């Protein structure tokens, strides 16, 4: 028997055995780049859920610290003396303003923190420090009872986590953008316990496409996030509401009318928020003073109507249970509108998603009550109108009716109300869109996209934009052992061979050497130069994406080398990135 004792040979044989295993596993499981992306999407979902839970915990902690109560925002406000109710949101605004001001020094030179901008028109990089500063400020505005949603910062943090993963793994811009989108999806899924709506929110509003290339990872991320939250907090649906059903088809006209009303009110609501912002800016007060003033207005309203504080969640539950008189509710809605405009307008970091749900529930209930009073058969249960109103208002505000319907269904698990909900959301969407083309999210994206148009390097659809630099390379002298080691260390199927000047010579294919991995004798003789394929297709950095796609269609490879006119290897282009970028290009342009 021939026993090998040379340690170098033993190592080589072991390495070749490992490589054979790798090839075997790869052939059996065939993990494509898409499947790997799904794994990272799942990880982003997990981290997104954790960051959401941590933020929620911290916000509750700040609230407890400021109020000495561990109950909900509205409940603790009710227990405080009037002067404390007046002062608390102002103090919160002051502290949030100070954090933002101090944070400016820490985040100099960092770009916008907006995750939607990073996904839609940016490189997918969400600045970490700036986002943390904004989230820390949000803790004070939310913890002190500001009329603002905590879900916005939760989604932002989840997006930061995902962006961090993508940057750590050195993802290309399209992959990074998809990763941040996965983070946002996870954030919404964990904030609202609504994984389907989380996926569709990002797909419909931010990506503008529900192509499977992006929806798949979004769904995985959202599911992992929702699972994580459920396991760690044992939360079920967000709004535990009585069972609603469509009383009779005669109710439908009233629901259609509600859709029209929500469609008219929603743009007003958005415009009023923008208007409030302008008024605050016109005061020319410094940010800290503006935020304190915003808090003071909320506090003043809360002395009489503590329900204006917070994101409005507890009041929505009360409305859905029918525990509020319509006259009281009218007061709530008016004050909440004013409070949200004050918080948002003063620059308090937070979201207006949940306040929108409040407005919808209020408007829906009031309308349902009015119809019920005049014609009981036309609106059997005004509470059902509150629920449908939430969906309609959300649909009109976000211009995303599919997401709104799904979100309402997931938050309440009331399937019986789905027919009026769908109809009303669609009517509200068309009404709002007809009145005002801008949605809650489109404004900022339009402005930023217009700025980006001036940037010559952006969006020309060239290979250079998607190229990943420093692909693993071999010299033409590399022996079989080195080739095997490199194939084991990287996950590529083709290794590029370059000369001393980094000129591309060809590629060594794992497919070619696969049958000979059991023959270490070849290791003595075979070098990269012997087995490189010179005819391996390559793309130029200035090639268009469709030219690159043509190469991929004619040649089976996951990546192609990017080579400049002098033959120098600049990087590699992944098929996954290319398809993702083509999907992104297919969506409607942001600037019209």
């Amino acid at each position, binding site marked *: 028997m021939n026993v090998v004792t040379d340690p170098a040979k033993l190592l080589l044989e072991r390495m070749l055995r490992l490589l054979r295993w790798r090839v075997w596993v790869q052939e059996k499981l065939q993990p494509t780049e898409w499947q790997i992306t799904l794994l990272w999407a799942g990880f982003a979902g997990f981290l997104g859920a954790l960051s959401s839970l941590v933020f929620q915990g911290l916000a509750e902690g700040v609230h407890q610290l400021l109020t000495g109560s561990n109950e909900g925002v509205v409940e603790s406000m009710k227990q405080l003396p009037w002067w404390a109710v007046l002062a608390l949101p102002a103090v919160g605004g002051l502290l949030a303003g100070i954090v933002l001001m101090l944070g400016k020094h820490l985040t100099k030179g960092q770009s916008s923190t907006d995750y939607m901008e990073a996904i839609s028109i940016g490189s997918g990089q969400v600045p970490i420090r700036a986002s943390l500063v904004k989230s820390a400020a949000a803790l004070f505005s939310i913890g002190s009872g500001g009329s603002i949603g905590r879900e916005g910062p939760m989604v932002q943090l989840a997006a930061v986590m995902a962006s961090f993963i993508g940057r750590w793994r050195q993802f290309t811009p399209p992959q990074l953008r998809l990763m941040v989108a996965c983070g946002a999806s996870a954030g919404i899924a964990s904030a609202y316990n609504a994984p389907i709506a989380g996926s569709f929110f990002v797909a419909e509003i931010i990506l503008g496409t529900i192509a499977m290339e992006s929806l798949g990872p979004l769904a995985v991320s959202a599911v992992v996030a929702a699972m994580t939250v459920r396991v760690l907090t044992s939360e079920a649906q967000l709004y535990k509401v009585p069972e609603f059903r469509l009383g009779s088809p005669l109710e439908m006209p009233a629901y259609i009318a509600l859709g029209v009303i929500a469609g008219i009110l929603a743009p007003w609501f958005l415009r009023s928020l923008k208007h409030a912002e302008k008024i605050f800016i016109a005061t020319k007060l410094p940010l800290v003073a503006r935020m304190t003033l915003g808090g003071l207005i909320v506090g003043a309203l809360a002395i009489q109507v503590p329900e204006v504080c917070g994101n409005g969640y507890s009041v929505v539950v009360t409305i859905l249970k029918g525990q509020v008189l319509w006259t009281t509710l009218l007061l709530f809605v008016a004050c909440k509108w004013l409070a949200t405009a004050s918080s948002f307008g003063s620059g308090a970091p937070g979201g207006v998603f949940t306040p929108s749900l409040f407005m919808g529930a209020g408007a829906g209930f009031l309308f349902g009550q009015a119809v019920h009073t005049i014609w009981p058969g036309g609106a059997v249960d005004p509470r059902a109108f509150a629920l449908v109103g939430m969906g309609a208002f959300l649909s009109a505000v976000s211009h995303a009716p599919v997401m709104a319907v799904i979100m309402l269904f997931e938050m309440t698990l009331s399937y019986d109300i789905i027919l009026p909900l769908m109809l009303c959301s669609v009517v509200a969407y068309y009404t709002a869109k007809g009145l005002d083309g801008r949605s809650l999210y489109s404004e900022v994206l339009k402005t930023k996209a217009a700025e980006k148009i001036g940037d010559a390097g952006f969006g020309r659809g060239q290979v250079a934009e998607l190229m990943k630099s420093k692909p693993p390379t071999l010299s*033409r*002298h590399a*022996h079989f052992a080195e080739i095997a080691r490199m194939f084991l260390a990287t996950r590529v199927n083709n290794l590029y061979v370059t000369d001393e000047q980094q000129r591309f010579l060809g590629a060594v*294919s794992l497919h*070619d*050497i696969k*049958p*000979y991995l059991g*023959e270490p*004798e*070849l290791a*003595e*003789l*075979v*070098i990269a*130069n*012997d*087995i*490189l*394929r*010179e*005819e391996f297709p390559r793309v130029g950095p200035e090639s268009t994406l469709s030219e690159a796609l043509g190469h991929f269609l004619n040649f089976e490879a996951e990546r192609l080398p990017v080579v400049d006119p002098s033959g120098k290897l600049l990087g590699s282009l992944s098929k996954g990135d290319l398809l993702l970028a083509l999907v992104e290009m297919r969506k409607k342009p942001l600037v019209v």
Partner: protein
Amino acid sequence: MTDLRVNSGDEAIRALHQRLRAATPDVRDAAQFLKDLFERSALSSVCISEDVAMPHARTTAVSRIVLGVARTAAPVSFDVEHPGVRLIFMIGTPKAAVTEYLQAVAALSRILKQGGTRAALLEAPTEAEFRAVLARAQLR
């Protein structure tokens, strides 16, 4: 061919190359083939054991895979680490034929690994016997 009388690896390559170009029209450009053989030998050793060398090249000079086999009369030096080479297997493969090249090299390695084949090739008294040993090994 057997009992090749040469003094160095380079000479052995030239001699076997000369024989191969005469034996087959598949060597379309003999000068280019020789150049490619030497270029490859300069890149890295072409010996697979102490007494076996496989000078080879993937080249545009051959129209299909060609193989020449020789045994030297006395050990010759191919490089510092391989001073006593006796068996030479020269392979020329077309540029695109990566798989065929690997197949040929792997097949030869297997043949030479078989118990006694190498010794039989070294001891074969005539060229006919040398060829017979190769043929038998191939059949196994």
